């Protein structure tokens, strides 16, 4: 038992851990198989600032003791993750299985992109954005989208579409992206093509 508790401001995780993690996992599966379609989560954890509830729920669902996590969310969020997910936290983005970015996204070339033989061993980036809106912004196409789909993610840097194209060019290697805002999330697997439309 630790001498001085490092986390006096610890907040609860999921109220009912098993059903909540299952419903969140289902939402993540739906989001990954229908790229850009916004999913709204119902069971949300009480996450410490600056984590949005959806981003916290996604990382709590995905991360466990076997998945190193990189995050820029600060000590309160790190203590919360260590307690509830039990995941090791790493300082090097390349060593992480999951990356949780709350400020500007890390360079998409940094995280583990898997190998040509085992591309599924790549990292997944959970990126917290200001807002998600369907029917505006990017035009998405690719597997899982019948024709095209429109998605706008507010608060991403200007060069993001170019960085995403470079990520897609490494196929089958590459990172997958989960965009989270408030209680909703949308996913961009590495196969999804982005076009900036104005």
């Amino acid at each position: 038992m630790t001498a001085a508790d490092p986390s006096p401001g610890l907040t609860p995780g999921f109220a009912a851990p098993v059903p909540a993690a299952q419903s969140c996992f289902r939402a993540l599966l739906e989001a990954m198989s229908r790229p850009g379609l916004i999913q709204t989560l119902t069971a949300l954890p009480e996450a410490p600032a600056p984590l949005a509830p959806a981003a916290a729920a996604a990382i709590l669902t995905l991360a466990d003791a076997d998945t190193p996590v990189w995050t820029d969310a600060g000590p309160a969020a790190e203590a919360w993750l260590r307690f509830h997910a039990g995941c090791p936290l790493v300082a090097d983005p390349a060593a992480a299985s999951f990356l949780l970015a709350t400020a500007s996204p890390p360079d998409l070339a940094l995280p583990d992109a898997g190998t040509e033989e085992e591309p599924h061993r790549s990292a997944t980036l959970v990126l917290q954005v200001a807002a998600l809106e369907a029917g505006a912004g990017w035009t998405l196409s690719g597997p899982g989208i019948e024709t095209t789909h429109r998605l706008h993610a507010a608060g991403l840097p200007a060069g993001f579409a170019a960085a995403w194209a470079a990520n897609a060019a490494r196929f089958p290697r590459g990172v997958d992206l989960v965009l989270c805002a408030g209680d909703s999330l949308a996913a961009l697997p590495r196969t999804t093509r982005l076009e900036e439309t104005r």
Partner: protein
Amino acid sequence: MRFCGELNELDVRLSRLYHVPMPTTPTEPDPTAARRRWMGVLARADAATLRTRLAEAPPLPPHTRLRGPETGLVMARGRQGGDGAPFNLGEITVTRCSIRLQDGTVGHAYATGRDSAQAELAAVLDAALQDAGRRPALLAAVIEPLAAAQAARRAADAARAAATRVEFFTMATMR
């Protein structure tokens, strides 16, 4: 579910089972020793006993559940051989609970068995005992009586076992 964490208590109990002394730490003023002691006493008490003791204590502060109470498995390790090498004895059922008081104090409890009420009460007591203002009353009303009862029970068990002890060297001298 498998818990990972420090479970010194189990190690201590199992080493007693196998008559191998635990590595003794030098008697330095350990800030965690008092907490470790009351957590151990609470882990050995059941929910009904805790409620009986709490009836005479000042009321416990309101709390929020952080995790659990939840039941899972812990690999219990024993020691074997002349050098006390660790081996995996088997998995045991453990219930754990973590709570937070309104002032932010976090209390933890791990106890063998499936008694979730015990784990939650023990976690609240652990948090309340960390507050120097509440500690003396709770120690006097809950921890010390429980510790005394547990010591008496252990002594009675030891006395019963001692009555059946066979002294092999006395058989040699009788010949």
